[in-house]
């Protein structure tokens, strides 16, 4: 008879399954670079990338701080814009028809063309980065919020109406809490976009940040530092994703518990 694994065993197995291919690729990479004596400017071995990360720790920390700041503020702006747009689009049929297409069109503008223009308009400071982050992040958020607010059961809305509830009460007691799991799904997507958006915004022109660090390291043939910056970027994204997932668990115990119950069956 099949018996589902316990949670802890399940976690160990998934971690192993996730780690094994990565370790395998890293080992293969190391062996090939050493065996073929590849020039570190072309491709540094993983051990060399680790060494570069350790040696430039101070530099990396400084630039990481800037990138993290941009990603966080940009994401906060996107959250604000996404929630308000999602709510407006749900509440007003007029706005749904007039604004929704605009939202979709905004996503068809290639960021690679827009980002340099933003630098021309707003300079090398933090503003163009925040705009890039906010522009790539607000869309998944507004779609998630719009879907979430629209997901309330008609029966539940009827129940509230029978109690004599006002439109605002139905919104705040049913639609808003109902949309939170959707919001968190959108947030998980956005938070990874945010870091990449910030790095990209810096890449086209900045004083500080992991993006400009990659740029300058590449120009001075420090490929190992480029890889170190990539490593830090990945860790940053995974870390922020983890924080969102943790917040979800804390804020929506009913949702996570419900999922746990289904898993048990």
């Amino acid at each position, binding site marked *: 008879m099949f018996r589902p694994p316990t949670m802890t065993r399940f976690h160990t197995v998934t971690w192993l399954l996730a780690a094994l291919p990565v370790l395998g690729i890293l080992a293969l990479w190391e062996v090939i670079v050493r065996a073929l004596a590849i020039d570190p400017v072309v491709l540094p071995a993983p051990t060399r990338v680790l060494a570069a990360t350790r040696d430039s720790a101070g530099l990396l920390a400084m630039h990481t701080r800037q990138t993290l700041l941009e990603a966080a503020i940009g994401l906060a702006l996107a959250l604000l814009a996404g929630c308000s747009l999602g709510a407006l689009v749900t509440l007003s049929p007029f706005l749904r028809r007039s604004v929704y297409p605009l939202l979709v069109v905004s996503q068809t503008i290639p960021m690679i063309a827009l980002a340099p223009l933003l630098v021309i308009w707003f300079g090398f400071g933090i503003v163009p980065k925040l705009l890039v982050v906010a522009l790539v992040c607000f869309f998944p958020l507004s779609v998630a919020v719009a879907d979430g607010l629209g997901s309330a*059961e008609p*029966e*539940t809305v*009827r*129940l*509230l*109406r*029978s*109690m*004599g*509830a006002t439109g605002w*009460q139905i919104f705040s*007691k*049913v639609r808003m*809490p*109902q949309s*939170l799991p959707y919001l968190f799904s959108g947030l998980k997507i956005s938070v990874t976009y945010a870091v990449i958006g910030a790095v990209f915004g810096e890449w086209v022109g900045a004083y500080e940040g992991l993006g400009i660090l990659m740029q300058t390291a590449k120009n001075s043939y420090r490929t190992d530092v480029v890889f170190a910056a990539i490593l830090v970027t990945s860790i940053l994204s995974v870390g922020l994703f983890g924080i969102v997932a943790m917040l979800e668990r804390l804020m*929506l*115990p*009913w*949702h996570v*518990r*419900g999922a746990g*119950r289904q898993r048990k069956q």
Partner: protein
Amino acid sequence: MARESTRTVQGDSAVTDAAAVGVVGLSKAYALHSTALPVLQDIRFDAAPGAFVSVVGPSGSGKSTLLGIIAGLEEPDSGSVTVGGTARRLGAVAYMPQADTLLPWRTALDNAILGLEVRGTPRREARAQARELFAVAGLSGFEAAYPSALSGGMRQRVAFLRTVLTGGSVLLLDEPFGALDALTRSEMHEWLLGLWERLSVTVVLVTHDVEEALLLSDRVLVLSPRPGRVVLSYEVRLPRPRHRAMTVSEAFVRDKALLLDAIHGVVS
């Protein structure tokens, strides 16, 4: 003068001046492909304060529509509906939909106080009121449980407490036990009877279960297939308090046969 004439119109049913629920000449049709589909036709009944009235009928006889109209969620095409003498019903009656419609993010206790909250009762006070009823309802210890952790019967009880706590002296129950297994349903009947006797509220119950209607009610209305009309308004004379054993008594079985005949269109 007007009141006098109302009395004669209302005819056979037990009429009091302050009927908890009064339905007069109610008709309702839905638009379907540009034709009108009549759902309810000339419904007429009233429920005295504290009475337990059941509405039975085949599927599609408009039972749920009738309840929705009494709740004020919809308006009739013609006729009138009053609750406690006034036509304003939203917020004045306590409506319990077919599904338990508990909010998954609220604990059992906080689900039960939803109606109180909507009416502006401070949470602390509402919770205190609900806690008392949780004890009466045999739900002590489950106050902090989320609905996903409760059994079907318990969810239904929480939904019922929410209905009771919503306030108003009229409860409108739309097949509250339809989704439960036979054993749980029978337990819920006794539970509901016990609570109803304690609360002294008026109940209008919609069901397709004749036995359930007989066991619980003072009066059973039988609706015809669509468009629903009242084909029989039957006064149940079983003594109270009622209990499960009565369902096999001779009188009960005779009543049941009578109601089933009425549902299936046999003129009695």
